[in-house]
């Protein structure tokens, strides 16, 4: 199962570091990262693959949300299917 993590918020030092070390702790593999700054706003999209056999996405969402709070950014994680369904015919 693949999931998309989106990180939105004010840019600061260490966002990628904190998010990726949390993901490493949780045995979540990062497949791709794209990152831009839009008018001072940090936008990062990650495609990830949890390596646990039966990944608990809601638990990951809670964990990431806590990481986001400590960084002052908003972090969402969603099943990849949402984006392929909505934007690909």
């Amino acid at each position, binding site marked *: 199962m693949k999931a*998309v993590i*989106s990180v*939105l918020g004010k840019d600061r030092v260490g966002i990628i570091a904190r998010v990726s070390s949390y993901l490493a702790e949780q045995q979540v593999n990062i*497949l*791709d990262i*794209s990152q*831009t700054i839009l008018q001072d706003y940090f*936008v990062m*999209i990650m*495609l990830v693959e949890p390596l646990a056999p039966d990944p608990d*996405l*809601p638990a990951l*969402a809670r964990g990431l949300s806590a990481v986001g709070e400590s960084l002052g950014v908003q972090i*969402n*994680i*969603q*099943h*990849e*299917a*949402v*984006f*392929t*369904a*909505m*934007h*690909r*015919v």
Partner: protein
Amino acid sequence: MRFVDTAEVIETLHMIQVENLDIRTITMGISLLDCAAESGTEARRRIYDKVTRLAERLAPVGEAISQEFGIPIINKRVAVTPLALVAGACADERYVAFAETLDRAAKEIGVNFIGGFSALVHKGYTAGDRRLIASIPEALATTERVCSSVNVATTRAGINMDAVREMGEVIAQTAALTADRDGVGCAKLVVFANAAEDNPFMAGAFHGVGEPECCINVGVSGPGVVKRALEKVPEADLGVVAETIKRTAFKITRMGQLVAQEASRRLGVPFGIVDLSLAPTAAVGDSVAHILEEMGLERCGGPGSTAALALLNDAVKKGGLMATSYAGGLSGAFIPVSEDAGMIEAASAGVLSLEKLEAMTAVCSVGLDMIAIPGDTAPETIAAIIADEAAIGVTNHKTTAVRLIPAPGKAVGEMVEFGGLLGRAPVIGVSGLSSAGLIRRGGRIPAPTQGLRN
């Protein structure tokens, strides 16, 4: 496939977090035909057991999908076989106990509404239909989550005017029995023409007799998303407006299809349909009326409202049809008054009349929905309004519905508060002319030639 596009991810997040895109309802349809029994007590035991067994995991599974996909699923609901068909086998004279059983089952499994305290009487009554309809006012007053509907007309059968007359009285009685709560019982009662057997939306959902043992139907929503999309094309001609709505409806519906398939897989229950509807809520930014105003109307209800709504309704269907493998239910734009911030504003400003709303229902899904009328409106007048709406449905091969709330003790302009999803509405004026003579005649209006298609 390439990595998910950043712009697409941002667009999706924006639609969900800012524009109120959501899955309005996952509705599990459950057949209760095998619950019929000679003893009412036994039938109710079977109904309670079956509903709580089959829908036990509905709410938690809906919640899990919502979290994993990051999309709000507002309601989890259950629709059952029209209860008159099930209860008709027992000797009970009153069916209120059946409604109480459904209410208990709904509370046990954590769904906010259960639909199907219903009867299909478009051509005539069975003994069970009569008892059920007579029980509606008390059933809706004593239960919290039960929704009731009665189909009084179809294009193939015509309009059962005896049932229309009776429903005028039933609505008045239901309002009277819930007078302490602004007549809220009537918000849970729909009178249909050409009722859809797989409609997932309340209060009109029931599980038709042609439906399987159990299935999952999903209703999507997203008026806010459509309005935002139209804000980006302020000067475009109406062809571009239609195209913009189609593209948006496609995306909204794909989300519904995804959730429906996932819910069906996890619950081990067949997927029925996705209902391609634009269902507003009273929340700001979630209004169908505001879409019409975005197209260029000063206020919803003014001249041009019917044309704008026709365009919207059609474009939603065209966009949605390709996004789902099975479209069904009501599929179209809803125009409930109390559940739509723009409709509430228009009604409060006195520019939205019952007659204009009636015209609008000829070109969208459903009908005169969640409209508060003066509490002293004569039952015959309510019946005549139902008859008009049924005539529009029957003649145009479409579903129409009437959900009127005669607000006890309230007059035109006064506000009625239902709370929650049911919203609030100002009382709208009703013609003072009498239709009692027409309603008193009774009988059945024959099916129109449109019904004879073979």
